[in-house]
């Protein structure tokens, strides 16, 4: 995986991931899946998806400077 160091890109993708998480957990979409007609572990699946993307971003931007 190519390593990227541009903090601007990292911030952009972090914001996009945040928006994705808000879409899953704090939007009308949440009301839709929270009707209870789906599997009980659905929130965990969504949560795991966000974590996996965050991990992918972490390995993509290995920025270890302060």
């Amino acid at each position, binding site marked *: 995986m190519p390593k990227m160091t541009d*903090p601007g890109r990292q911030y952009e993708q*972090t914001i996009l991931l945040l928006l994705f998480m*808000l879409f899953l957990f*704090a939007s009308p979409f949440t009301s839709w899946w929270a009707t209870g007609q789906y599997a*009980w572990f659905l929130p965990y699946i969504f*949560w795991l998806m966000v974590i996996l993307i965050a991990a992918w971003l972490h390995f993509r931007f290995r920025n270890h400077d*302060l």
Partner: protein
Amino acid sequence: MTYELEILFGASLLYLLILFFIAYVTDSGLVPESWTSNPFVYILSLGVYATSWSYYGSVGFAEREGYMFLTVYLGVTIAFLLSPLLLRPILRLTRVYQLTSLADLLAFRYRSQLAGILVTLFMLIGSLPYIALQIRAITTSLIVLTREVPPQQLALGFCGMLILFAIMFGARNISAREKHRGLVAAIAFESLVKLTALLVVGLFALFHVFSGPVDLSNWLAAHPEATQALYAPMREGPWLTLIFLSFCAAFLLPRQFHMMFTENLSIRSFAASSWAFPLFLLLLNLAIPPILWAGNHLNLEMDADYYVLGITLVNAPEWLPVLAYIGGFSAASAMVIVTTLALSSMCMTHLLLPASYPDPLLNIYLWLLWGRRLLIAIIIMAGFGFYHLIEQNQGLVQLGLISFVAVAQFLPGVIGLLYWPQATRQGFLVGLLGGIAVWGFALLLPLLERSGFIYTGLSLPSLHHSLGMEQWRFATFWSLACNGLLFVGVSLITRQSSEERDAARACYSDVSLLSALKGVVAAGNTRQFTQGLAEIIGQDTAEQEVKQALEDLGMEADEIRPGELRRLREQIERNLSGLLGPQMAHIIINRQLAMDSEAKTALADSIRYIEEQLESSRTELKGLNADMDTLRRFHRQILLDLPLGVCAVTPDHQIVVWNLAMEVLSGIPSRHVVGYQLNTLPAPWGNLLAGFAVTQDRHIPHMEVTIENRPHWFNLHKATIPDPQLGARDSKSRTGLVMLLEDLTDLETLEAELAHSDRLASIGRLAASVAHEIGNPVTGIASLAQNLRDEKEPEIIEESIASILHQTKRISSIIGSLMNFSRSGSIGRDYQTFRLKQTIDDAVNLVKLARSGKQVEYNVSCRKKLRLVGDRQRISQVLVNLLTNACDASKPGDRIEIIAFQDEEYIQLELMDQGQGIPEQDQDVIFEPFFTTKKPGEGTGLGLSMVHKIIQEHQGRIKIDSVPGTGTRVVVRLPQHRDQQIHETDIDH
């Protein structure tokens, strides 16, 4: 199934001993450092977030509010996802300025001791119920397992053990820079235990209470209300409010702040936590629904808060309830330990120290250490006291959320700290007080009322109802709305102090630039630093702090550079901040290491510091700042790689730039000179550059400098650098300088070689004629010698010998002229006083040798005593070249006039021939190297070029007037050195 209290007490004791052991072996270095600095240790230690509320209370929360319990972790996930934007800047600030708590951070930003006090008190009030909750969780879990109320001494005993552990492994030393590896390892172990315990209980629920996933699915299919009960509250309850609260709690809770920032060992670990810690939380919560359903399936008659224990009491192996209990115990103990450590540090810095600063004669380190240990004991015991006071039926979640809303009140201040540099101290304090007031009214008063301590007569539920909000949404919304509006409103109508503005800039900027860089420290050396500090913090402590700061910066104890001393002052302030808190450190430094108000500084003074900061923060810059930094680097690289020596100085002649070429020229590395005064440079650079800096000349050409007994030549140039930060008037009076050194030594060597080559070429052309000229007298000598063999007449013999001697003299004269002309000569100037007439005669003789066939007539008109100061050999070369050209242009029988005379300031030399002249189009290029009108092989084209160069070196002028077909007149004017001329004339007489 029930358990004996003694067994559980023994298990708890054993568990605590294991914790002690882990912390001890880690602190003792028995565990490899690579293990303890592994990112997963740090990530697990962040698991202190999950307290007994998470461990036990999540199941009860899920029972009452369904998936609402996930909000407590989803908010944390959001905070960690935003790590690069939100948490990393805080980590940077805590590291750079050694800030150990949120109170430190806010007191630093708003430059207010009151802010620190307020934050600490509010943290304390918000956290005590939370600590009480942990103690209660432990005692309640004992009740669940033993079916009997444990004696009070047991809870007290646990508190005692926790105090001991916190003191031993969290307060072993007082410095903020010392990380508590043992503590971190123990807390990580605690997280591992509670995660393992909860997962094992979850698996037990899945495979033992139910018979596996299929059975669970069947059960859920048969009880659709179970799944519905999880989802329904999401649609109705305060879903977003709780996500928001947990988002705030993720980094504002004292324990989170402490583990995340204060105990962080590496940025690598911190970066990995952005995804790994949410994963830890997900795993921790994965078991909650199966445990809840298992409890429901078993129809347990107990509070769902304790289903984690309850289900293990039904047909489970005997070890499982103990494991479940230990998991809960670990969650509670970790929280109590870390929260207490964080609070004790805050209380020490913001409550105890401002109230009673220790006598400088005492050892301040010991005073702080024991003060902190005492505070640890007091806080845990206060939590124990609160545990007795609060109403026993308060749900775990209730107490936890009250703390969450409390810490959320710091969010406006933190946002202002990171993103709003105009926010003011007054705005922050008023906003925080407003938020606290609403929090107290909406949450604390009802809690105390329910516990029976007070009676307010307020009917808050009806107020919530009338506003269409339930309790948490009401409290969160109104407290933060009040807080935020007051914060913004008051900030807009009040003004910042200059100190606050500096701190705001340090917090807001991508890089940690402090405007405190302006000015010069009054103390002129490190000894004066120690003396100043000793008056407040004691001699030993002052010595130690100055030594530590010098080590941190890699400075020597004899440092005297003003810029470096200013950095030292800042480093000491940072280090003291870790000990005494930012505000106290700031006051001490301002008082004891005052700035010199008279000294003026300029931007150039701060350049080195600014550059160091930019270098250390390069990857943090973004947007326009990143582009500007790239541009800066590019320009700096140009300056560094410039093949000219560059030395830039401040108005006070302090060196700020010393580029690579300068390092090579001088042999002095830049780190040894930057920051020092010009005149402190070793010889000859100090005199050379300091002298040039003060001289009026902006350029000095061809300056000869002796370096290591060898001559070097430089062209020196300089330009002023106005300071863009100063006004037009100031910038004129105080300007820096940039000086360029152009090394001419190689060029000089090359030119000497070229001149020598030119002379050798001339000699080559003369060779045949010289051979002929020497051959004639040699033939004569041979004949005379032949005749002498038979000659008996003494007179004739005498005459023959005289003739031989005459001929020999002639040969010697020819060889002498050749030798003089052809010797290689030294590089550079070899000035001497010589007779011009003799040099002209020598040159004429040389040229005659080559041009004898032409029978050109030479007329020399020059006073015998006319002397010239210059390089004789080079002047001779000029004459030979000019005469050769004149001779080449002349026809047989033509005359060449050579006139030399002196006027007021110059010696003028004129050469006139009657040759063919120089075409007009060639007159402009005649001095160009390699220009020649002669046939190939007859001339190199370097002759007149060398002539021009030599005359210039002698600061003279050469002019050629030529009329084609009539002849050419060359006029050379050379300055005469009057003093030497008179002196030499005197000697001559």
